[in-house]
């Protein structure tokens, strides 16, 4: 066994994953295999026993952490008075302050509850510009807030906010209006934290005194990973592929350690003292950055490296990384599901694996200066390893990032050294400090300019669908071949690799080509409608796109739900988008999609309506086909799949904007062999009656219940006509319209076999081959 720590970590992670997908059968099978191996290989029984325990530990710690719940959950959605202590420096965001609070006392209806729990408070600003309260870590505060339980993953490709907060030991959040916050006093958070936060506050003060706002924010972002940068600057960094310098990572720890190491060398400090000083600096940095996994990881690895020097042993990156992984994951196993942990560990792992092989290739290029080769090798190695993960999370790939990083990383090093030097000197002799800050100003300017220039280039990023599992295996296989870890220089290995690779590629493409069943996903877009249709031959249709109401401000349903869902389904372009009717909760999401994802054609009703006419003009200008849909149209979608437009007639006249537009929603019946789906938009009783009067075929297996289950729709006659086996109500959680109406729900319960509600079940996926129908929902 070459690296037992790595194997233990891998098996431990496997246990956590099995806990998450809740598969105890696999756990039992794997345990039996491991115990069987003990009997087979008696001389290695200790190591298999260790594996067996790692698997079980991973599984059970996973289960324990997944099932942890807030002690405040009995007060969900209630307004309460809370007293507690701010335990970390608050983070100021665009429209709110994020603050971690340890509660002491909760008052509800005159009753006191003494509950101690860490919660995340979102203090929303009274007016949009800026807040006028000032709180800091250590403060005891009292405020009114509404207790909320964070949401789990509700849509395909959606963000699992609940798991994310669980990794921070937070199980409930509070919405707080800033006017209710009262600061009562201040209390110590313990000596270590008090001092660390104190030093941090002083550093920030020095930064703010000496640098302009943009530069200061950037430096704070780089040193502490606080993301309160101006949005446009932030976007520039993201688009030019260097956003990672704004999130504290191993790179930052590397610079910090090199800096400290350099100083200790100048001051001729002896080896053991060096180790002590660096340990203290690392501990300080871990505390001020809030104990982010990436910083802890890099610190542990640095420490192991220095330790290996002291006891003169060969440092092994993979084993050091594995030990760091175990130390971080055992108390907090759910971290493996967060993007930051995955990126940090994979970046480190692939730098260890691929740095030297890539450098070897690069140095073969003539006139390649070694320094540039080394820098390029680091960036390329990190990027190759994190590529599948970053596409999975962010759906895009920065092509120019090796170049931008080549320019940025050395600048970042110089920038950090001058700035940290500036901060240190400023406290001793302000004059030299000021001079260093003055110099740093030029580098800031240069960094910002690079970001601005490269983000302005078109085609700097590529949108890519996530890897399939086989695609991922092929990718890793090829990487290992290129890096020479699979020795294709040996004839036999070359032949076998070639055969395996060809088989994988063939399987990959046949899987992509095999027709799959029809899949319709009714997304949870809060109050609103949206459904994605994927046909067996990969035709994709979107019916409505949801949309947040006006008061939700800058939030976009397309960013939150639609695009992640589409990308996670590997949909890169839409063949047809249908807007049932021009109301925000159906259409706004689609307006947001234009320009974000290629759309072949948009289907709208054939009715003269100002807002729609403007929209049509706009999309025509962008080269998107417009199809006007009227009653009687039949669209052939795919083999054996067609859609019939049942309503509205063309040229209807709108009198009452709200009601008439609802009633003029496009109603579509989709048929696939023996199964049929009815999409009804927001039609009300009037249109329902017209459909029955005209003797339209409205019989369907799956009904999207009209108008979010409102009582103005779903008349008994209509439902009797449809006779749906499955009814789906697309409705927002605790919406202002009291949708769905309980009577409608009751009626549906009498008629259909199953009812799904997006507010309770999350997104609902209906899968059919034209005969059988299967339903899967995202929340249990």
């Amino acid at each position, binding site marked *: 066994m070459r690296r037992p*720590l790595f194997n233990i970590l891998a098996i431990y992670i496997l246990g956590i994953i099995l806990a998450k997908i809740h598969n105890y059968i696999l756990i039992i099978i794997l345990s039996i295999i491991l115990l069987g191996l003990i009997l087979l290989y008696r001389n290695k029984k200790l190591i298999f026993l260790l594996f067996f325990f790692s698997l079980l530990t991973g599984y059970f710690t996973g289960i324990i952490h997944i099932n942890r719940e807030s002690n405040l959950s009995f007060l969900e959605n209630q307004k309460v008075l809370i007293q507690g202590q701010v335990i970390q420096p608050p983070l100021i965001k665009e429209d709110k302050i994020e603050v971690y609070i340890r509660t002491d006392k909760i008052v509800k209806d005159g009753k006191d509850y003494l509950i101690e729990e860490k919660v995340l408070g979102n203090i929303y600003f009274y007016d949009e510009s800026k807040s006028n309260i000032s709180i800091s870590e250590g403060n005891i505060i009292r405020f009114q807030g509404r207790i909320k339980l964070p949401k789990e993953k509700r849509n395909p490709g959606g963000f699992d906010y609940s798991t994310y907060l669980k990794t921070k030991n937070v199980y409930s959040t509070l919405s707080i209006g800033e006017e209710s916050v009262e600061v009562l006093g201040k209390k110590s958070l313990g000596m270590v934290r008090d001092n660390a936060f104190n030093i941090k506050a002083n550093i920030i003060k020095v930064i703010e005194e000496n640098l302009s706002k943009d530069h200061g924010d950037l430096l704070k972002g780089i040193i502490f990973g606080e993301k309160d940068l101006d949005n446009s600057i932030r976007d520039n960094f993201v688009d030019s592929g260097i956003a990672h310098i704004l999130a504290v990572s191993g790179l930052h720890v590397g610079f910090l350690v090199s800096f400290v190491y350099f100083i200790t060398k100048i001051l001729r400090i002896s080896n053991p003292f060096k180790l002590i000083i660096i340990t203290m600096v690392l501990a300080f940095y871990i505390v001020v950055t809030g104990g982010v996994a990436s910083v802890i990881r890099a610190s542990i690895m640095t420490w192991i490296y220095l330790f*290996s020097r002291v006891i003169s*042993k*060969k440092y*092994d990156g993979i*084993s050091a990384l594995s030990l760091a992984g175990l130390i971080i994951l055992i108390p907090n196993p759910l971290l493996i599901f967060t993007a930051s942990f995955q990126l940090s560990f994979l970046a480190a792992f692939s730098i260890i694996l691929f740095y030297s092989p890539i450098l070897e290739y690069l140095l073969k290029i003539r006139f390649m200066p070694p320094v540039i080769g080394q820098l390029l090798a680091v960036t390329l190695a990190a990027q190759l390893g994190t590529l599948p993960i970053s596409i999975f999370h962010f759906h895009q790939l920065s092509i120019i990032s090796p170049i931008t990083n080549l320019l940025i990383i050395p600048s970042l090093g110089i920038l950090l050294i001058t700035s940290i030097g500036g901060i240190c000197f400023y406290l001793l002799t302000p004059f030299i400090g000021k001079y260093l800050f003055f110099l740093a100003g030029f580098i800031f300017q240069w960094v910002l300019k690079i970001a601005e220039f490269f983000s302005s280039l078109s085609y700097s990023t590529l949108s890519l669908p996530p890897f399939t599992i086989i695609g991922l295996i092929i990718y890793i296989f090829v990487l290992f071949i290129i890096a020479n*870890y699979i*020795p294709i220089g040996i004839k036999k290995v070359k032949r076998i690799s070639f055969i395996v690779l060809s088989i994988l590629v063939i399987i990959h493409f046949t899987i992509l080509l095999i027709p799959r069943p029809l899949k319709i996903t009714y997304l949870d877009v809060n109050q609103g409608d949206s459904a994605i249709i994927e046909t067996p031959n990969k035709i994709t249709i979107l019916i409505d796109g949801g949309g947040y109401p006006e008061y939700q401000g800058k939030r976009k349903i397309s960013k939150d739900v639609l695009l992640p869902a589409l990308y996670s389904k590997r949909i890169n372009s839409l063949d047809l988008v249908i807007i049932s009717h021009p109301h925000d909760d159906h259409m706004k999401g689609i307006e947001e999609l234009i320009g974000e994802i290629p759309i072949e054609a948009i289907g709208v009703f054939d009715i003269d309506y100002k807002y729609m006419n403007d929209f049509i003009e706009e999309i025509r200008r962008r080269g998107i086909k417009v199809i006007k849909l009227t009653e009687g149209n039949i669209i052939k979608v795919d083999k054996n799949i067609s859609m019939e437009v049942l309503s509205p007639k063309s040229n209807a006249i709108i009198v009452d904007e709200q009601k008439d537009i609802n009633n003029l929603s496009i109603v579509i019946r989709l048929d696939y062999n023996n199964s049929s789906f009815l999409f009804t938009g927001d039609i009300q009783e009037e249109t329902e009656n017209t459909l029955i009067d005209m003797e339209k075929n409205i019989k369907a297996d799956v009904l999207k219940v009209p108008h979010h289950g409102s009582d103005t729709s779903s008349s008994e006659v209509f439902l009797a006509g449809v006779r749906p086996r499955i009814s789906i109500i697309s409705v927002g959680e605790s919406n202002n319209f009291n949708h769905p109406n309980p009577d409608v729900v009751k009626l549906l319960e009498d008629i259909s076999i199953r009812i799904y509600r997006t507010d309770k079940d999350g997104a609902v996926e209906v899968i059919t081959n034209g005969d059988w129908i299967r339903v899967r929902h995202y929340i249990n």
Partner: protein
Amino acid sequence: MSTFDEIKEILRESLFPSDGQCVLCKRLLIFERSPFCFYCMGKVHWIGESVCEKCGKEEIYGHTRLCLDCNYNIHNYHQGIALFTYTREGKKIIQDIKFQGNKKLGRDLGDKLGQKIKTKNWDEIHMILPVPLHPNRERERGFNQSWEIARGITKSISSPLVNNLLIRVRDTPHQTDLTKRERERNIKNAFSVKDQQLVVGKTILLVDDVYTTGSTINECGKVLMDGGAEKVYFAVLAIGQR
């Protein structure tokens, strides 16, 4: 070794595996099962089939079945076996074991050596004796490389591994830069058998790291044969070229 030392060794080896990199080119090892990368595996001069029947060197002189040395000199052992030739790569391997403290490499290669011994039609071996270091040298280095190699051998040859039976009584300088004659003089009377009783009538396997001129093995063989041993074989990792 005490249990505590053993645990310490396991922990140290887990965090700082000594076979994490290729011994020769320092490339990271991942899928390899040996301490060398696939490419360096081919660079080591592994000893093949046609060898000197006496010392196991890959060299045959004229129409005999022996190497030049064994043709003209009489040795105090029966037969010997070696894993690879002491070339540039071979030297690097031995240095890694001795001077980098890579005990695991010694054990792994010892294991290989043991498997090779099994294929030979040798008499049953009663005990395995590593060529000892002088206590001063062993304290300085922290371990005896021959002992580690012998430990590897015991994985496939289940004879008792005996320490402190063959002992070094004289602290001799390094053999490296000496000629054959000087080596013989240097090593003379450096060994002795502690308990003659245990040796009488036994078939013994001597284990050492390198065999160049054979003076060390010869001297040990002489002491053992004088003590009444039945037969002496030897096994080394590296054997010199002519």
